[in-house]
């Protein structure tokens, strides 16, 4: 499967996210509202509450992060592997019964290797094109993801010997009869971004005129593009193509005859001392037949449920019964999404308040810094900020930030910038007579801000705050790009496992919508209550 060098921004995912999230959402609304009510009523309790939420949140995050954290920090008895579990049968989530376990051909090999070398194995995940950056950032000891050694990759990372050889195929609608690279003349061809298939497709495109390539983030998306007629064919590895062809009777695939190798190997950071021992064990496994047994186990079984209905022409041909067993798995993404949103909103509110004060108190350099900060964070894409924070932090600071921490940090920094403007407006909209009345009784500045100005400002900005929370809840889907298994990623995992596309996404969309509606209702109830107290 693949190949990447860089490009971890996953813009096409953003597009998917857009589709999925066009409805709205959220959860933590109720909690936030609760906090705000408290704020209006009893400030001390509010303060306490924020403190508790923050502390609890941080400890939960830290807990999560431990399970995600690179091994290197855990000591020498554990090896950390990073993979992209959306590629059955190499690696994918076993979603039956809501369990969250990564399984597959690569995983079995990795387990055997770790066992024979006397290590425990820890598995992390990310998008495929985030794997090499993760190695370079020393987030993991090795990558197994059906990765093919290419000269480009070898400049940045080291590889083991090849442990499995795969062939490329052309996947196309049934009856297309595309068998040779030459048959692709003048066609639109889809490939997964950063994969060896993308490179091979580019080679073919050089030889065959008029091929138009379309790169997407995941194989299920590529397949979906064929089904929706936006591309004519795709180049996909044979085992994967087989799965999709079984699940989608309207597709066919043909192996491309090729003399070139495109086998899979294990990737290591440049200069890793693990390459040698791994090679030794791999060779052993080849010699004693262990590897062949695993190939038989994973590549001959039928992992896909063939579509129950016959291929309909037109329409989405939805069959939700196919994801019924996986619904608990998707639902498990909800608490994480909620926690994420709640933390980002509370921390963003605190940070935004600080920024807005910097803008208000009128010390020139501080105002300037706060304005510059706001303009940078409002002027660049959130997805880009997220990728930078996640991938650059370990290299810049040496701290191995977990995906969830990076997500909360980025969203706090980003929403703080937006909220600071809202809060500034809210504060400045409070009648000047209020501060004069407080000052004329000798109330000190900060006490006045806290007791007199903020509560009124908060009421002014409540609707904007609710909007921001809803926005954050939906944007939380972006952290799926760095491997946090929240609602959207859970749905994508299920889709990858089952070789289907729409059903899990629609289900995830429904969840988001229900969450947002719940939050919207809670917010309007709160607003009504606040108005009554006036």
């Amino acid at each position, binding site marked *: 499967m693949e190949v990447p060098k860089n490009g971890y921004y996953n813009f096409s995912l953003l597009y998917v996210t857009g589709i999925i999230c066009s409805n709205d959402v959220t959860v933590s609304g109720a909690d936030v509202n609760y906090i705000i009510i408290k704020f*209006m009523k009893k400030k001390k309790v509010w303060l306490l509450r924020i403190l508790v939420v923050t502390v609890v949140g941080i400890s939960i995050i830290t807990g999560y992060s431990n399970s995600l954290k690179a091994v290197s920090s855990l000591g020498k008895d554990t090896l950390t592997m990073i993979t992209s579990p959306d590629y059955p049968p190499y690696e994918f989530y076993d979603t039956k019964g809501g369990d969250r376990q990564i399984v597959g051909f690569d995983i079995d090999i990795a387990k055997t290797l770790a066992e024979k070398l006397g290590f425990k194995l820890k598995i992390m995940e990310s998008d495929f094109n985030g794997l090499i950056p993760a190695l370079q950032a020393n987030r993991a000891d090795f990558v197994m993801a059906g990765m093919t050694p290419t000269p480009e990759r070898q400049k940045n990372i080291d590889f083991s010997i090849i442990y499995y050889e795969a062939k490329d195929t052309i996947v196309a609608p049934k009856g297309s009869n595309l068998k040779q690279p030459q048959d692709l003349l003048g066609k639109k061809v889809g490939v997964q971004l950063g994969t060896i298939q993308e490179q091979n497709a580019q080679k073919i495109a050089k030889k065959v005129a008029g091929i138009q390539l379309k790169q997407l983030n995941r194989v299920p998306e590529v397949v979906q593009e064929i089904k929706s007629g936006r591309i004519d064919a795709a180049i996909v590895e044979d085992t994967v193509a087989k799965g999709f062809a079984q699940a989608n009777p309207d597709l066919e695939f043909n192996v491309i005859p090729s003399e070139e190798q495109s086998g899979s190997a294990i990737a290591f950071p440049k200069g890793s001392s693990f390459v040698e021992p791994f090679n030794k064990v791999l060779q052993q496994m080849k010699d004693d037949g262990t590897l062949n047994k695993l190939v038989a186990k994973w590549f001959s079984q039928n992992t896909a449920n063939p579509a129950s209905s016959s291929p309909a022409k037109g329409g989405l041909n939805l069959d939700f019964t196919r994801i019924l067993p996986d619904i608990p798995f998707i639902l498990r993404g909800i608490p994480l999404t909620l926690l994420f949103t709640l933390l980002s909103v509370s921390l963003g509110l605190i940070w935004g308040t600080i920024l807005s004060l910097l803008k208000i108190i009128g010390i020139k350099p501080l105002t300037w810094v706060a304005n510059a900060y706001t303009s940078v964070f409002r002027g660049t894409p959130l997805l880009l900020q997220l990728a930078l924070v996640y991938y650059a932090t370990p290299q810049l600071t040496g701290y191995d930030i977990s995906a969830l921490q990076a997500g909360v940090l980025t969203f706090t920094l980003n929403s703080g910038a937006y909220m600071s403007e809202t809060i500034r407006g809210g504060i400045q909209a409070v*009648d000047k*007579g*209020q501060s*004069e*009345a*407080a*000052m*004329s*009784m*000798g*109330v*000190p500045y900060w*006490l006045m801000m806290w*007791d*007199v100005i903020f*509560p*009124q400002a908060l*009421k002014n900005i409540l609707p904007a705050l609710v909007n921001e929370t809803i926005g954050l809840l939906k944007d939380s889907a972006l952290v799926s790009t760095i491997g946090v298994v929240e609602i959207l990623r859970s749905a994508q995992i299920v889709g990858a496992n089952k070789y289907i596309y729409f059903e899990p996404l629609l289900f995830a969309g429904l969840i988001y919508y229900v969450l947002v509606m719940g939050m919207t209702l809670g917010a309007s109830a709160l607003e009504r209550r606040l108005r009554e*107290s*006036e």
Partner: protein
Amino acid sequence: MNNVVIRTEFLCKSFGKLDVLKDISTEFYQGEVVAILGPSGSGKSTFLRCINLLEQPTRGRIYFHEQEITKPKANIAKVRQQLVMVFQHFNLFPHMNVLQNVTYAPIKVKGINKQKAQEHGLELLAKVGLESKVSVYPSKLSGGQKQRVAIARALAMEPEMILFDEPTSALDPEMVKDVLEVMKALALSGMTMAIVTHEMGFAKEVANRIMFLDQGILAEDATPGEFFQNPKCDRAKQFLEKML
């Protein structure tokens, strides 16, 4: 009557090029009720707001019990506790009920025990005739009621002096009487008061001194008897002709 609470020396205030106050030197004695009169734009309100430094004077000095409060290092917050202001537009805190409005500053600023502050607050609210509105929010009160709460709020700080900035100008006529009565009772109790007002009758009856400001100058400083019977400057004469 010779205990000086506030003394101003050559007090000047400019907004940009506009000189609003010009060299005002005077003093306010303990127990005095001073009505500050003058045509609109004469600088009355600015003068009052300078006294507790809601406006920073451009030049000149202000002394509180002979301590200069216009010095950069002066503890303004401390002084303001003694020079509380009552505003034309009341400026009650809308997110606090009536009793909370009255007890907030005593509890938070003076550190008075909550229960004591509430007892005192209830007494004061009874004094201004609003004991039935204790737990109501300001938005449910009439203008006159709001202003009486504001007066109770000022009194709760137990200040040396209260500064009234056109306290009845925003009220419907029938509300004015209630507020003036409360102020009159306050004057009789010996509270030091400075009142910017257009209520000539009230100034005549209750004040024991009249300051007349004209174009930022303290044009006349007299007893009500002298001022209303026999004003010295022409501007004051014209002003009184219009007002009476």
